[in-house]
C-alpha cells in the first residue's frame, strides 16, 4: 500500500509541476537557511570538553572593588592578578589547578635558512595537561617538581613537531624559544577544543591550537610578556616587578573540582581568601567572588557570537513562514482533488487510508524539499565565511549528522504542515462530490 500511495503521490505532484516546484523550493530554502545558520550556532555553542565541563571551574576575585565593578553589574574582573593567582596556586585547595597566560614568545629554528616564527604559546602549570585531558603522542607532561624549579622544559604540539622534527619523536631534544634552549619532555597530539574554553578572554573563543607549552614559573622568571589583555584600574608603576605586584589583571585560572561538594568548599575557600585580603587591608570591601564551570563561563562570556544567534532566530522564522506557505499550497492541492477523494471514499476507503495517502504524498514533497535544502545548505556552509569571521566560519561543516538533520527537519516539518490539509481532505463528503459531477 505504501508503495502504491507513494506512486499516487508522485503522479499527483507531476500533474501540477509549478505548484509542486513552489512547495519544494520554499521548503528547501527554509530548511537550508535554518541548517546553515544552525551549523554555525552548533559549532560556537559546542561543549568543548563534555566529560569535564562541570568539573573545571574559573574562580574570580574582586580586587578592584565596587567602584569598578558597578560598571559590570557587580561582577569581579574577568582575569586575575599575579598576586591572587600565586596565592591560589600555593594553597592548592583543588584537586588540580593552574594559572595560565598566552606567552609572547617566538621559535628560532636551528636551521639557519629558516626564519624565526611565532606559534600560539601558553605558560601554565603541570596540572593543566591532566586537567584538560591533553593527549600525548610522545613523552608526557612536565612534573610539579619542574614547576617548582622553574625548569627549562617544554611540551610542543604535533604540528610544530612535524615542522621542526618531521614528525619524529623529539622528546629529549631542544627547542629554542626566545633565544633560550628548552628540553622537550612531551609532544601533545592534536588537541583543539572548540570553543577554546581555557582562554576565552584573549581569544573570544576561537583561535589556532596551542603549539608551545612552557612552565608558568619559568615564563614569569624570564619576564615573558603576555600576548593577551592586561587591564589596570590604576597606574601599576614602572617596570616588571611593580607590574606583577600591582592590581592589574592578566591571568587566567582554572581549578578542577570533581564533585559539587568540592566546588562548594572551594567557593567557601575563595570567600575566606577574599576576607583574609580584606583583613590584611588589601581589599577595602566585602568578599565578592565567583566560581563558574566551563558551561557557565562560556555562557557568561557570550562566546556564541551575536550574529550566530540573531541569524538562527531569523532563519527559524523564515522556516516557519515557508511552512505556513506549504500549508496553504497543500490545502489548495488536496482540495482540488475533492472529487478523486469522493470516489475513493465511495468505493469504501476509510478516512485512515485517505490520511495515509496524503501524508505520504506530503512526505514525498518534504523529501524533495530536503534534497533541495541539502544542496542549498552545502552552498550556504561554503558561503558562511561571507557572514562570520574566518575563525568561526571554518567551524561550520556539512557532516553526516547535519545531512541527516536536514532531511529529517524537511520531511518532519512538511508532514507536520500537511496535517491540517489532510484532515480537510479526509472530511470530504463522498455524496457531495459524486453528485456535482
Amino acid at each position, binding site marked *: 500500500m505504501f508503495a502504491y500511495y507513494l506512486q499516487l503521490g508522485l503522479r499527483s505532484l507531476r500533474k501540477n509541476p509549478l*505548484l509542486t516546484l*513552489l512547495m519544494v523550493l*520554499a521548503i528547501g*530554502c527554509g530548511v537550508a*537557511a535554518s541548517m546553515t545558520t544552525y551549523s554555525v550556532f552548533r559549532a560556537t555553542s559546542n561543549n568543548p570538553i563534555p566529560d569535564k565541563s562541570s568539573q573545571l571551574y574559573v574562580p574570580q576575585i574582586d580586587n578592584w572593588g565596587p*567602584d569598578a565593578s558597578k560598571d559590570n553589574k557587580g561582577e569581579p574582573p574577568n582575569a586575575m592578578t599575579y598576586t591572587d593567582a600565586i596565592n591560589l596556586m600555593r594553597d592548592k585547595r583543588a584537586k588540580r589547578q593552574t594559572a595560565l597566560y598566552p606567552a*609572547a614568545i*617566538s621559535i*628560532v629554528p636551528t636551521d639557519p635558512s629558516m*626564519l*624565526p*616564527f*611565532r606559534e600560539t604559546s601558553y605558560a601554565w602549570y603541570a596540572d593543566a595537561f591532566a586537567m584538560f585531558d591533553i593527549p600525548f603522542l610522545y613523552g608526557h607532561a612536565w612534573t610539579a617538581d619542574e614547576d617548582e624549579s622553574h625548569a627549562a622544559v617544554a611540551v610542543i604540539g604535533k604540528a610544530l613537531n612535524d615542522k621542526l622534527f618531521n614528525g619524529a619523536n623529539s622528546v629529549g631534544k631542544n627547542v629554542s624559544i*626566545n*633565544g633560550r634552549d628548552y628540553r622537550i619532555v612531551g609532544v601533545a597530539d592534536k588537541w583543539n577544543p572548540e570553543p577554546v574554553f581555557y582562554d576565552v578572554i584573549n581569544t573570544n573563543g576561537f583561535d589556532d591550537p596551542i603549539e608551545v607549552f612552557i612552565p608558568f614559573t619559568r615564563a614569569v622568571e*624570564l*619576564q*615573558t*610578556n603576555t*600576548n593577551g*589583555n*592586561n587591564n*589596570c584600574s*590604576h*597606574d*601599576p*608603576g*614602572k*617596570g*616588571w616587578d*611593580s*607590574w606583577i605586584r600591582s592590581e592589574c589583571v592578566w591571568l587566567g585560572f582554572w581549578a578542577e573540582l570533581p564533585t559539587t561538594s568540592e566546588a562548594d568548599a572551594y567557593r567557601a575557600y575563595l570567600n575566606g581568601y577574599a576576607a583574609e585580603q580584606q583583613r590584611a587591608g588589601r581589599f577595602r570591601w566585602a568578599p565578592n567572588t565567583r566560581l563558574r564551570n566551563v558551561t557557565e563561563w562560556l555562557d557568561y562570556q557570550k562566546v556564541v557570537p*551575536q*550574529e550566530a*544567534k*540573531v*541569524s538562527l532566530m*531569523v*532563519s527559524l*522564522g*523564515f522556516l*516557519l*513562514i515557508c511552512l*505556513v*506557505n506549504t*500549508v*496553504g*499550497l497543500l*490545502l*489548495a*492541492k488536496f*482540495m*482540488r482533488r475533492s472529487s478523486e477523494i469522493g470516489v475513493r471514499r465511495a468505493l469504501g476507503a476509510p478516512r485512515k487510508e485517505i490520511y495515509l495517502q496524503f501524508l505520504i504524498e506530503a512526505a514525498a514533497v518534504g523529501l524533495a524539499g530536503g534534497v533541495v535544502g541539502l544542496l542549498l545548505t552545502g552552498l550556504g556552509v561554503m558561503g558562511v565565511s*561571507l*557572514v*562570520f*569571521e574566518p575563525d568561526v566560519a571554518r567551524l561550520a561543516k556539512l557532516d553526516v549528522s547535519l545531512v541527516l538533520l536536514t532531511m529529517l527537519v524537511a520531511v518532519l516539518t512538511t508532514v507536520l504542515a500537511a496535517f*491540517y490539509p489532510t484532515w480537510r481532505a479526509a472530511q470530504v463528503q463522498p455524496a457531495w462530490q459524486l453528485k*456535482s*459531477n
Partner: protein
Amino acid sequence: MQIKPILSALRRHKAGTFLIAMQIALTLAIVCNALFIIHQRVAHLSEPTGIDEANIFIVKNEWVGAPDSARVDAMMRADLQTLRQVPGVQDATPSNSYPLRGSGWDDGVKLKPDQLQDSSGSTIYFADEHFIDTLGLKLIAGRNFRADEIGHMDMRYKLAPPVVIITRALADKLFPGGQAVGKTIYLIGGPATVVGVVDLLQAQSVERWASDFAYRSVIIPERLTLSLGSFYIVRARPGQLDAAMRAAGKALFAQNPRRVIADDDGLLSFSEVRSRAYESDRGMAILMGVISIVLLAVTAAGIVGLTSFWVGQRRRQIGVRRALGATRQDILHYFMTENLLISCAGVLVGTVLAIAMNLWMVTRFEMHRLSLSYLVTGVVILLLLGQGAVLAPALRASRVPPVEATRSV
C-alpha cells in the same frame, strides 16, 4: 466596490484566509527587523577613519626573543629609516595600533588629577613626529610634535607624556566651545599638555562597547617599545601601494632578519584592514538581504498559489456574476480588494509581531529600537507585493466567460 459580499465569501474560506494573513504578518515582522539590522550594519560601513586609506599599508612586526626597551627602540628607528628610503614609500611612522584594528590601548581622560570618574574614554595612539603626515591627518589647531619631543617607553612604564595631540571630537568633549591647545589633561600616568588638535581620527574599535569614544583619540609622542613588536604605518606614493608593500617587507628583512612578519596578516593594505574590520557587518547585511528577498518571493508565491486555487474553485460563481452583468473590471477588483482586505489584516497583526520581535531582540542582543519608518516601509512593500501577486490570478478570473455559469450542473 462592495466589501460585504467579499467578507461573507471569505467566511467560507477561513483556513486559506487565515494562512495568507498569517504569512503576511510573519513576513512583515521578519522583513522589518531584517531591514533594520541591515541599516544598522551598513551605517557602520560608511564611517570614515580620517586617514588616507587608499595609500596606507600596515606592517605588523614582531621581534624575536625578548630584547629590552632601549634595544627595541634602536631597532625600530633603524626600521623606520629603512622604510622611509624604500622606493615608492612617502613616509612611515611607528604605532601600537591603527583605526579599525579592533583592539589596543584605551584609556580614560580626566581634567583634574583627583577626579573620580573619567571625563571621556579615548583611544591611545603612540606616534612619532611623522604620524600626522603619514596618516594624512589634518592639523586644525596648534602644532605637530617636534623630533626632540619623541621618547620611547616600555609597556611597563607610566603613561605620562609631557605633551599630546588630541582629536577634535575629544577636544569638543573636554573643552566644549573653548580652545584645547595649551590646556592640561590627565591620563592614567599623569598630566599632559595639549599642543595640537587634529580633525578626524577614528578609534581602533568600531564595536559597540567603544562607540562612546568613537572619534576621541589621544596621540602620544612616544615609540612604544614592546619586545613582542608593534606596527609600522606606511604611506605609499599615489599608485605605488603594491610595489611599496612588497619592497618594504624585503627591505625590513634585509636590514634585520631577527623578526617575524607573518604571512597572513604581517603586511596589510588598509583596504584589507577595512574589509576585515567590517566582515561581520557586511556579512550580516548580505545574509539579511538574501533572507528578505527570498522571503518576499516565497510569500508572493504563496499568494499566487492560493488565489489561483480560489479562482479555480469559483469559476462557476464568477460565470454567474458575469452572466448577471458584472464587467471584467468588477471581477478584477473583487479579487484585488479581497487580497487587500486580507493583507491589511495580516499587516496589522504583523506590525504587532514586528514590534514584539524587536523588543525581544533589544533585551537579548545589543540592538536598537525599531524606528517607525521601517514599519511603514515594510507595510507598503507587503501591500504592494500582495496586490502584485494577486494580479495574475485575478486577471485570469476576469477572463472567465459568462457561459461558465451554465456548465457542469
